[in-house]
């Protein structure tokens, strides 16, 4: 279930090795999962795996690579860029022979455009940053420090910023300020309202919801079988 793949090294060095969670039984349908980012990645990790288990049972191979710099990746997070993550997900799609993509929340920002698939509750870069910056200003205020969103944004652009414990480099930060998820041909939105229930990324603590996992996996299976999504 835990496997590895080799992303291309950005500077032409020897390629590093990244881990992935895979339900890989060599079937025709192979779904690449672009996971949620940062804090949302933790909150949605279990849900993501629950959806993958259901799809596996329904006959779909599921491949969940780490974003470089996250989880067990050896790459330093502060050196990651939006373009780099896009390239990594596209490389993962090729290396793992994915036929479809399921992008979750900000994962939609890096979904390989060549693959048909779904953006689940897609999140934009500005909203992602806004939430994380706000968490930092609230924490700072509690600690008696005066930090403003504006000053933090300027700092993020100039030298990068640590938000919620995640070190975001200046290039990633600047790119996120403009990044909007875009549906490529063959891709469609799956809004939370279509799944029903509260989005699990909203939870203060990581949670799970079997009924939501059933519905998300069900929509994908239905859509793969040719029914409208």
């Amino acid at each position, binding site marked *: 279930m835990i496997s590895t793949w080799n992303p291309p090294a950005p500077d032409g060095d020897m390629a590093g090795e990244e881990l992935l969670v895979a339900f890989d039984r060599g079937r025709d349908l192979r779904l690449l999962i672009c996971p949620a980012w940062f*804090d949302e990645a933790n909150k949605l990790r279990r849900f993501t795996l629950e959806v993958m288990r259901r799809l596996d049972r329904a006959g779909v191979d599921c491949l969940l690579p780490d974003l470089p710099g996250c989880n067990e990746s050896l790459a330093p997070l502060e050196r990651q860029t939006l373009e780099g993550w896009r390239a990594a997900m596209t490389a993962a799609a090729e290396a793992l022979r994915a036929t479809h993509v399921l992008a979750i929340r900000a994962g939609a920002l890096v979904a390989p455009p060549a693959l048909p698939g779904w953006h689940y509750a897609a999140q934009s870069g500005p*909203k992602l940053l*806004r*939430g*994380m910056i*706000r*968490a*930092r*200003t*609230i*924490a700072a*205020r*509690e600690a008696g420090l005066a930090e*403003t*969103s*504006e000053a933090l944004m300027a700092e993020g652009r100039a030298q990068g910023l640590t938000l*919620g414990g995640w070190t975001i480099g200046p290039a990633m930060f600047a790119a996120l300020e403009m990044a909007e998820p875009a549906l490529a041909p063959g891709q469609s939105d799956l809004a939370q309202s279509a799944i029903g229930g*509260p*989005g699990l*990324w*909203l*939870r*203060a*603590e990581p*949670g799970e919801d079997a009924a939501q996992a059933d519905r998300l996996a069900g929509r994908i299976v239905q859509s793969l079988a040719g029914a409208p999504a």
Partner: protein
Amino acid sequence: MTVSHNLDGAALDLELKGLIADVLGLDPEQAQALGPDSGLFGHLPELDSMAVAGLLTEMEDRLGIVIEDDDVDGEMLETYGALRAFAEAKLGGC
């Protein structure tokens, strides 16, 4: 996201309690039991700064308001009643 500009008191209550239930993973009945003096930030260990930030960002989306840095203080987040009063004031100012 639902953006509702013309919320009366009961509808605002429903939205806000629903939102807090979503964030805290409460059942709707538990959320309905929230009263003006029910403690939020600083009273509930799971409601840390990240969760509060999520709550405020979602409030912006669902209520169609914009919350500035200066709006956010300990008092406004301390109790359910204070948060509701804040939302009411923001909606009234639209």
